[in-house]
């Protein structure tokens, strides 16, 4: 199993806070790796909100190829965070890397006037091309290339990695932080198999194994969308399902559970949107997950969500106070992240619930699958 923590805060926070909460839950993960997603950034990136930020790891040679590629596209480096590890010894299990890349770019002049959808598509294609190049020469690993998003993933114990990479660096501040402490899965250790996963502004991380992985992967890959690739981890499909739902189907996150864990017959019949939901269940049948999974994610508008699968076999709790909320695999993680909260309002979502904290962090919204879908009216 893995352990997850997501923190959303009105004030920019250091990711260390999330990693400490993970550390509290260390009994639930084996410390074999850490994945970090940050958005709604503070620090120097606050001023660069609209500019795409590239996150990844490169060898010395890879950085040169990266620079060349970005220059060819017309991107200019606007700001970069330097992570200096050259003179340090990595913690046990962590490989020695040349460069951890976190760079914000200015858009190419030729992209001016493009529609938002086109820009988003091109950003994704640039990431995919870099990934492909990196896999070819084994000199680049690219996690994300998107405005207001930074991702760091590394093998090793989360806190030790954080110390090694100086993640308490003042340049790294974010209002939304997703962190995952991973455990080896059935699939080979590969940084691309490390949560959270990202595609076009949507990130998610998962606890648990996805037993319906292969048919879901087949289905996503046959959608004809170039971003539906990778799948070094069975959990990557959750991110892509959310992306497919938001972008191709135009549905809100309230519909997510209706796709991955649809209601059964009797509940559908008595549901006010039963007709619609039955159609959704039929046509999205291949996206039904079978868990056991807990999915925590972030949407392009910086809202965060938490859902459980139909069986609710994975732990998760949501809690906090106005302006600061967290989703955590375990109560102790939540306690570490936000000790001063009204604990009576902590909420453990069950098999029908979707928990959403909107970007204004005003409340924890809970939608049950049996409620009418607001987006339809």
């Amino acid at each position: 199993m893995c352990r997850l923590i997501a923190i959303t805060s009105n004030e920019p926070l250091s990711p260390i806070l999330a990693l400490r909460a993970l550390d509290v839950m260390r009994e639930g993960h084996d410390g074999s790796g850490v994945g970090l997603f940050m958005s709604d950034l503070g620090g120097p990136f606050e001023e660069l909100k609209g500019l795409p930020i590239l996150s990844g790891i490169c060898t010395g040679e890879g950085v040169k190829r990266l620079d060349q590629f970005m220059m060819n596209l017309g991107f200019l480096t606007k700001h970069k965070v330097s992570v200096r590890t050259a003179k340090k010894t990595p913690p046990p299990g962590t490989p020695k890397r040349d460069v951890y890349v976190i760079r914000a770019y200015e858009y190419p002049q030729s992209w001016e006037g493009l529609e938002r959808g086109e820009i988003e598509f091109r950003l994704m294609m640039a990431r995919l091309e870099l990934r492909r190049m990196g896999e070819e020469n084994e000199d680049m690993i690219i996690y994300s290339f998107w405005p207001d998003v930074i991702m760091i993933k590394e093998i090793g114990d989360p806190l030790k990695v954080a110390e090694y990479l100086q993640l308490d660096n003042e340049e790294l501040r974010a209002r939304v932080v997703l962190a995952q402490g991973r455990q080896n899965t059935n699939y080979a250790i590969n940084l691309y198999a490390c949560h959270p996963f990202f595609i076009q502004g949507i990130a998610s991380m998962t606890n648990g194994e996805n037993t319906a992985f292969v048919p879901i992967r087949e289905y996503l890959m046959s959608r004809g969308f170039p971003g539906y690739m990778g799948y070094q981890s069975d959990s990557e499909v959750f991110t892509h399902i959310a992306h497919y739902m938001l972008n191709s189907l135009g549905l809100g996150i309230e519909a997510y559970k209706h796709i991955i864990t649809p209601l059964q017959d009797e509940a559908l019949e008595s549901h006010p949107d039963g007709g619609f939901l039955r159609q959704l269940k039929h046509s999205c049948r291949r996206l039904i997950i079978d868990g056991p999974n807990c999915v925590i994610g972030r949407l392009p508008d910086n809202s965060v969500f938490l859902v459980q699968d139909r069986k609710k076999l994975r732990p998760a709790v949501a809690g906090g106070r106005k302006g600061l909320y967290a989703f955590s695999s375990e109560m102790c993680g939540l306690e570490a992240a936000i000790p001063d909260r009204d604990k009576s309002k902590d909420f453990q979502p069950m098999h029908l619930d979707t928990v959403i904290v909107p970007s204004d962090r005003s409340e924890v919204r809970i939608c049950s699958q049996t409620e009418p879908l607001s987006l339809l009216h």
Partner: protein
Amino acid sequence: MLANGTIIPSSLSVRDLLWQVRWDKEKCTLCGRCCAVCPVQAIELGVHRKRIVQIPSLAEIGPATASSNVYQVYHGVRQKTDPAYACTGCGMCNLVCPNGAIIAERSEEIDKQRFHINRGGQPRRRGGRRNAPDYLNLGTLDRIKFTRISMLTDPALDAGRHEFELRTLLGRVLPPEENLRLYRENGWIPPVREIYPLIIGSMSFGALSPNMWEGLQMGVAYLNEELGMPVRMCTGEGGCPPRLLRSRFLKYTILQIASGYFGWDEIIHALPEMKEDPCAIEIKYGQGAKPGDGGLLMWYKVNKLIAAIRGVPSGVSLPSPPTHQTKYSIEESVAKMIQSMYMAWGFRVPVYPKISGTSTALAVLNNLTRNAYAGGLAIDGEDGGTGAAYNVSMDHMGHPIASNIRDCYLNLARLGKQNEVPLFAGGGVGKNGKLAANAAALIMLGASGVQVGKYMMQAAAGCVGSETDRCNVCNIGLCPKGITSQDPRLYRRLDPEKVAERVVDIYLSFDTELKKIVAPLGRSTSLPIGMSDALAIDDKNAADRLQIKYVV
């Protein structure tokens, strides 16, 4: 015959026959039941003359001692050796014998009878299934194992207590984008049925006896109405009894139309009086047991009732053409036929074709993916059964179902239409008794559901047929169990109520076994269609061909 008598080429001894009747004089009570019950009159009352040599003791021998031979007669059972009356091994004689004095045994070597069953220039015709005695080696489906067992990293589920949804969809499912758009715009969305993935395959009223048909229908109705299992049954090509057409139970029935269009006059005329729509319409283009050959109901079975339902004169053989007379191209005629059937029920009933397993299945499928109305594709593999066919068709024609269904599924996945055109697999599912394992394997190879016929006959009615040429007389209406006979003296042996009970037994136990397979794989909320990562086989070539794991 006498040792110096004449023989004809087809003079056989009991030793030459496939089934040899062993009769025990000591146990026999001469009640005659065995001879009376034998469907093919392979045995008859035998009056045996016997000489007893009585040797007097030495003391008795004298000049006047007469010849000591005593001639006696005893009565018993004699097996005919004329191939026309060859025993079929059905075992009814053994079933009726009060003392267990008689049994048919299989020849220990390859019989000679097989060389003489084409007398009159008529090749052998029979009912039943492919004679492929692989019950020791097990077929491909039987050898597929489920190896992705949830262990520690994710908990296996409790098959007995967990909540399961093991349903499948029959009908054209639209891509999500289009489906939601049409829903919003109130457009026409193709009808889709949520059904149980084990379907009773097409066995016609005519091929089956009225009692068998009634039993199956009652079982299906009970499963639906009392147990909430949406089980469906296909009529086969023989129409549908008028009362069923006008009853609410029609919704549990898939009506089949085939190249002979038998029964469709009755169906069309019942349309205005139908209380419910049928579940679906199956257009039969082929049958796995005899691909490229049409349906066949031999004259023995065409009695008054069958003739009336099918709209034909009684007492004539009813061979359906191998293909639909109007079918000259798949693009046009098949599409038109599918649309016509949709139109008959106001576009409320899914219509799908059924073909026999064939290496051209992909071409058919590719075409159907471009036909917005095709509600699925049923493929019937070489191990499918039939009520009547030429022996050569049954034994040698056709395509195994496993690779056929796998190829089709993978092709759909390449096209991105794996959810849109559901595939149904039939032909030999459960032929060695492993119904749930075979069905689960086919589903994980990509089938949306499976169709079974022979298994139902064996398990629900006690059919004695086998892959080793036992019985197989379905074609001539002499079914000793009354399953495929139209002779009331035979079919009244079969109690429809008991058949219905067995149908329910089969479905309940199948359901439990299916759960016992999918639960350890961590699956419960949806049928694991295409979950090929769960499958493995101990044959490298088969593993490569099916794109599943190879394990030893």
